[in-house]
């Protein structure tokens, strides 16, 4: 039997953060992961994260994963890979299947950070090759460098469905549609908008009824559903796709907590059967902690903070830090966590359909929830979206209260303000002068910021937009400008392309369009 003071199960964002915090305080920590590579799902996440600077906002998930791993290794955390924890037994003993052998490990503290598993839906032909989970699509394209398919139907409009749809487009695949049985887009509006403006249609209140094809997917039949989620006969549509990607939510993988004897509760808002944890992420079992998705489905950013709280508490309980130190660190992490748990998508608001306006009292876009993009009329209500300003200026199409504020740090000239409540909508300071540097565009994880200049040339305006696709257009290229729905609206000419290290792979395309399209042209197609 081997001994470590802290046994962490799962090397994802929560587990690694718990390990780092405990190791920082001097504890001897081991992390176990059933996979060959650590990092959990972080290495599949190639988009920029939301939140504030302290939450690693505007950093891409895989880079956060690299940093966490390095930090853990530098602190001497022992990471066991290909190591499946089979059970948790009396007095903090665990059994690990490692390299085909079963080992015993004993600890004083156990942190369960096993994450979540994907939910599935069944339909006729759902077992055919070509029906895959969203995580599989990410593994193939972002880890293995292989396109999951050519033409893909995305089932599910939560953040996973939206983010993966965008990643599929980045991998050079076509996304035939994003569908959801719910009447509203489930994920962040900005994630939906960046997919919609490339021309991907959204069908809400739709489900997939059949995967066509003999030995593999050769098409998909979708249909509208009634209020009881039953397909309405006669509304079927056939889509020409070779892949059906399922992104219909996650369930906590809480079996180990249950097995250990922790008090469990079925909480739909947390995604299923979860261990009951206190404010320090400790379960009903003394010294057994649960953090991250296993304790309730949330974002990776909150998983990291929960891990830190658990790691700090374990350090205190084992005498590695004193009470003051513990309270101070936990308070800091909790305040940071509270910031992330604000806004329309906060855990306490999960499943709510009664919200009609933003915290600022502006009507929420109905079009965004139904089709994935905001209409011109709806956008006019948002102060940061005004186009009636002379010279170059930011237009921030951020219309939902989401905890995120990198834009206010990005502008060195004080043009953009979110304030200390990071879920507030950004506002533009009319006194400050925009220089058109574009740092705000690259900093916006939702790709919702554009720089518009209606006074570019007689009769022409420029629109600068974030662009993360290949091939990258060149100055002088001519193509079409698309509106927010992805419809080509006018001719466009690229006048500049900006890329730099600090913008972290987000390029800024500036296109010239007839001035009357300054408020509608939001994407470029060669």
């Amino acid at each position, binding site marked *: 039997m081997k001994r470590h003071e802290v046994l962490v199960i799962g090397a994802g964002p929560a587990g690694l953060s718990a390990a780092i915090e405990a190791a920082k305080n001097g504890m001897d920590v081991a992390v176990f992961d059933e996979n*060959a590579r650590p990092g959990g799902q972080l290495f599949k996440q190639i988009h920029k994260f939301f939140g504030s600077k302290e939450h690693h906002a505007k950093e*891409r998930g*895989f880079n956060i994963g690299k940093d966490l791993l390095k930090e853990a290794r530098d602190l001497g955390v022992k990471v066991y890979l290909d190591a499946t924890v089979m059970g948790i037994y009396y007095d903090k003993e665990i059994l690990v299947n490692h390299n085909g052998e079963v080992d015993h490990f004993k600890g004083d503290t156990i942190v369960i950070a096993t994450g979540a598993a994907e939910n599935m839906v069944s339909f006729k032909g759902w077992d055919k090759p070509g029906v895959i989970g969203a995580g*599989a699509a990410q593994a193939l394209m972002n880890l293995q*460098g292989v396109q*999951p398919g050519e033409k893909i139907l995305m089932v599910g409009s939560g953040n996973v469905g939206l983010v993966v749809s965008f990643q599929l487009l980045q991998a050079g695949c076509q996304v035939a549609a994003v569908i959801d049985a719910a009447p509203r887009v489930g994920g962040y509006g900005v994630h939906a908008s960046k997919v919609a403006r490339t021309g991907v249609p959204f069908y809400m209140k739709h489900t997939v009824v059949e995967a066509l094809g003999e030995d*593999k997917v050769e098409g998909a039949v979708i249909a509208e559903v009634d209020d009881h989620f039953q397909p309405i006969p006669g509304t079927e549509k056939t889509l020409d796709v070779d892949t059906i990607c399922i992104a219909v939510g996650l369930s906590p993988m809480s079996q180990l907590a249950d097995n250990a004897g922790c008090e469990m509760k079925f909480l739909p808002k947390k995604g299923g059967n979860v261990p009951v944890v206190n404010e320090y992420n400790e379960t009903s079992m003394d010294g057994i902690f649960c953090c991250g998705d296993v304790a309730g489905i949330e974002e990776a950013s909150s998983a990291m903070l929960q891990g830190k709280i658990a790691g700090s508490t374990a350090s205190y309980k084992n005498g590695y830090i004193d009470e003051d130190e513990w309270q101070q660190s936990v308070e800091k992490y909790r305040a940071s966590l509270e910031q992330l748990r604000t806004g329309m998508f906060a855990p306490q608001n999960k499943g709510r359909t009664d919200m009609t306006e933003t915290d600022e009292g502006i009507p929420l876009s109905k079009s965004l929830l139904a089709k994935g993009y905001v209409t011109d009329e709806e956008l006019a209500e948002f102060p940061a979206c005004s186009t009636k300003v002379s010279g170059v200026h930011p237009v921030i199409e951020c219309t939902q209260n989401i905890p995120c504020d990198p834009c206010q740090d990005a502008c060195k000239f004080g043009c953009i303000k979110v304030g200390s409540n990071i879920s507030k909508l950004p506002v533009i300071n009319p006194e400050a002068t925009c220089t058109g540097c574009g740092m705000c565009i690259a900093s916006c994880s939702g790709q919702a910021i554009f720089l518009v200049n209606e006074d570019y040339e007689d009769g022409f305006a420029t629109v600068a937009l974030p662009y*993360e*696709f290949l091939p990258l257009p060149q100055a002088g290229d001519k193509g079409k400008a698309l509106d927010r729905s992805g419809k080509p609206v006018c001719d466009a000419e690229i006048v500049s392309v900006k890329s730099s290290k600090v913008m972290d792979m987000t390029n800024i395309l500036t296109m010239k369009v007839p001035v009357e399209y300054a408020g509608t042209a939001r994407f470029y197609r060669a």
Partner: protein
Amino acid sequence: MRIAQHPILGTYEKGQKVHFTLDGQDMVGYEGESIAAALHAAGVMTHRYTAKQHKPRGIFCAIGRCTDCVMIVDGQPNVRTCITELKEGMNIQTQYGVETKEAWEAKNK
């Protein structure tokens, strides 16, 4: 299809080119990638046929949980190809039930 250049990830770090066989056919992939990825890049969708209904199965979760993608690798059945790294000279066979095609056909004549 392999992604030659990715707008965020650039080029993918790949091991050496390796040769392997699928049901006796010569195939090419890269060392260290998953067997499933190499097969998917070559357009192979069916990894196995189910024992009772003889229905095709392929990649589903790609993280080693669902066991839909299992195949016979170097004579060993039920190998999860999505989390098993490809190596030079691997002999990979489509799995029928839990056996090779030949064994399955002999039984189900």
